[in-house]
């Protein structure tokens, strides 16, 4: 029997990720304390999907502890979930479990993999907004990747620290708030390639509604009327 991943149920359970959008993120080597970024590899670079894989090595592990992080950027949170479903269909294990307890908080939707006969979480696949992320232990020695997955999730879903803004490492784009009608669609960014032209990472966090990239335009659809504070950040990488 084909594994059943109920994408509609996933969508119904997705709240935060509907109004989070990350664009042009890349890991540079400072993200994981105690780990060293060994290489990054472009797996797919097409109009509607960009997937990069980052190989991390635990410092002083002499290559025995390796973590592979795949980050696929799509144009919409629903497509990120479709991508996750396709990813799961390329796992040979039937009935891949969801994360429970604290693990359940990672991402909008997540699935995990544990080392046989232990509680070591060796794999976490999750979506957050328009990103589909996969964190896997791929070295000789299996390592728990749940903290790494959790760190990444926070990176993509939380606004930047105020200190980062004060130090000039983050640029906040205007306008910072908008008056919206219910179900109104507005263009947030006309050409999404412009704010990241110098290699920055664009992070958008809206209070409700949905974010969607149509070609190069980033649109926002509000779910409720009122004044909306929309965080639009360009982070130096």
């Amino acid at each position, binding site marked *: 029997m084909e594994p059943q991943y109920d994408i509609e149920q996933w969508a119904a359970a997705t709240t935060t990720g509907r109004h989070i959008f990350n664009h042009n993120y890349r890991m540079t080597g400072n993200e994981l304390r105690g780990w060293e970024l060994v290489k990054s*590899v472009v797996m797919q670079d097409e109009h509607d999907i960009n997937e990069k894989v980052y190989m991390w090595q635990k410092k002083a592990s002499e290559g025995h502890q390796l973590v592979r992080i795949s980050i696929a950027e799509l144009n919409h949170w629903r497509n990120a979930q479709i991508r996750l479903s396709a990813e799961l269909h390329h*796992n040979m294990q*039937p009935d891949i479990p969801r994360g429970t307890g604290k693990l359940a908080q990672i991402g909008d939707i997540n699935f995990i993999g544990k080392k046989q006969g232990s509680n070591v979480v060796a*794999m976490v696949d999750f979506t957050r907004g328009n990103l589909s992320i996969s964190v896997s232990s791929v070295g*000789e020695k299996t390592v728990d990747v749940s903290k790494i997955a959790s760190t990444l999730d926070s990176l993509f879903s939380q606004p930047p620290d105020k200190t980062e803004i004060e130090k000039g490492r983050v640029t906040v784009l205007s306008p910072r708030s908008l008056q919206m009608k219910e179900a109104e669609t507005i263009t947030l960014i006309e050409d999404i390639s412009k704010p990241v032209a110098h290699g920055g990472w664009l992070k958008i966090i809206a209070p409700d509604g949905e974010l969607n990239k149509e070609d190069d335009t980033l649109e926002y659809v509000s779910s409720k009327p009122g004044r909306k504070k929309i965080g639009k950040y360009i982070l130096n990488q």
Partner: protein
Amino acid sequence: MGGLTSSYINNTLAALGTTEATKDLILAFLNNAPNAASIAGFEPTEGPIVDDPLEGYGDQIKDYDIGHDVAQRIINKRNALGGFTSLSQLSGISYFGQDKFNDLLYSFTKVVYEITAIKFNYHTGSNTNDALNIRKNYSTSTPSPSWLKGSASVYADSPAAYSIKETQGNALAIRVCLKANRISAAYVRALGGGRLGRVKEKLVSFSASGNSSYQTFELENTTFHAHGINAYNIMWRWQWRLHTSDRWRDIVVTRHRIFIVLETPTLPWVQTTGSTSLPWTDALEIACNWAKGTTNKDAAASLVTQHYNGSGRVSYDTIRGKTFYGWGTYNLSEMIERLNGGLGLGEKVNCTDSANTVSTLSNLLGCDLWQSRMEWSFDLNPIIAIGYTNWAIPFSGSFSYHEVAWKGACTQNDKVFDGCLKVDSDADPTSAPHTPLLPTNMLFGGCITMNYRLRLCPPTPTGCDRCIPQPGTTRQRRSII
């Protein structure tokens, strides 16, 4: 003997009408010689400085050409000067007298002195008489022409690949560009060449400026067709002579890496000029070595399957059986790095990674395999997963799906090559004892007769009955990056 005076040298050059081109050739030769031996040559072989038969004693015994000691003195003076800028600087070199100076002039006055370029693949639209279109890897093309003076120093710098099937019975040829000084035509050939063969003697014409433009040379004594898939290092010793009665004189030795495949590679490999899916020499290095000596496609694919499974560089992902090297496109570049001892994308693989590797490397050799799946959620017999030595039943007893390299229409009537796991080859794969067998060219089969399907799955409604080929939705050849 104190050597020549600079005035003798200058007067001789003027009297003989030695051209600036000749002087430049001699200076370049002396300045680029890495050691004395490269000037003196290796006896008894004549050259690179040859004796002028019209000067000296004429008996070829007393008037030998430049020897090692004199050559070393020339090198010493060159090094002291920081390089020669004029032939008059050859004055005062002990035992470098008139006869040897004449020999030097003679050797470079009328000479075929350079192989400029060699093309193995001169007809990009076909490969019946020449080599295949190739590239080094996804991001790097191979040099064009394959061999270029000054660019190629080791065998791998000058690669070429030939298909046995397409070239069988045909005269093979290469195209070569040469340079000569004050010669309108000369005979040129190359010895050696291993199983690719010698370069047949040919009369080459040169323009007034000494260029030959590209000349087509036939190869002779080509024998690679009988020896199957292979990767050879070959050398050609290029020679020339002015008249058929003259002795041959050496020009240069060129080195080349030659790959031999069974047939023109099939998808994902293409022969479209400029495509990133032209056969990669980085992949040919692996595939040709794995299937070395094989003359048929099934045996080649079997060897690829065996070498991949036994490579020791990858092991099965027992956490979830996840695809790591790509399921949209296959990241062959990273797999090659992994198989060559590098990191790649890590050691973990699954059946999709294995099917991709086996089929893609086999098809590079001319096989005709597909990646195709059997689905869904079927119970398993004990297996030995790639990278392991123990019998086990993964994931509490079943696979969600399994993918293999598959022939033909990828149905139960077609044969599979499974690099991912070994099955039990005995009469009862459901229970111990087990005898490991890597499935190569094994019929997929049904649920009655013992073939791949019943070796993989028990004969139950949740085993064999659910393990159904799905060519309609999954048969493919993933593109490569």
